[in-house]
């Protein structure tokens, strides 16, 4: 069983298009994340959700809109795609973390990534 799954694995599209990436976790976690990994492998958090509530929005352009229909799913919709959006996008989830210390202290489980190429 795949713990954190993402679809699609590859996404090639033209500039200006709108696309979505889906993420599902079957670990029973309350917290989910989206990360962007650029061509130099630098991994940066974009969003995190806890119990379907947005916790982190790291100054991501508002063309990116996360949607969490339930605790097991966190989808990423991107409007008006630009060349600079080309990257690998990772979804992750985590448990509650150390008591009183926050969920970000827990192990994060990553999906396999979605490689987005904008032409």
């Amino acid at each position, binding site marked *: 069983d795949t713990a954190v799954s993402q679809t699609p694995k590859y996404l090639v599209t033209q500039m200006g298009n709108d696309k979505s990436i889906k993420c599902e976790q079957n670990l029973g976690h309350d917290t989910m994340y989206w990360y962007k990994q650029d061509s130099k492998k630098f991994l940066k958090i974009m969003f995190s959700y806890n119990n379907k509530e947005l916790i982190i929005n790291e100054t991501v352009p508002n063309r990116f809109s996360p949607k969490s229909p339930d605790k097991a799913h966190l989808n990423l919709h991107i409007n008006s795609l630009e060349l600079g959006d080309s990257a690998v996008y990772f979804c992750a989830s985590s448990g509650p973390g150390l008591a009183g210390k926050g969920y970000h202290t827990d192990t994060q489980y990553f999906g396999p*990534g979605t490689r987005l190429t904008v032409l």
Partner: protein
Amino acid sequence: AQSVTQPDIHITVSEGASLELRCNYSYGATPYLFWYVQSPGQGLQLLLKYFSGDTLVQGIKGFEAEFKRSQSSFNLRKPSVHWSDAAEYFCAVGAWRDDKIIFGKGTRLHILP
């Protein structure tokens, strides 16, 4: 704000040799420290983490790391590498006041046969 530095972009070692990957962090309080590994075409997987207690932490796949507060370091070690260890390794730091962890820029490990 916390930060994490991995000074080595690439490291090449021979199979069977020992390995040490460096990680330095910057934070005023005691940080939470992690090492993740990313195999080609895969997501990240946790190797080990340190929150408190024994400063030598054992992880999966024969890896260990040592927290040295005086040097603000959390270096990853393995006594004998295998070809399957070739991957990208990320150090990450978090703190209880913040709500996220910060990843270093990674170290790519190459293994010579």
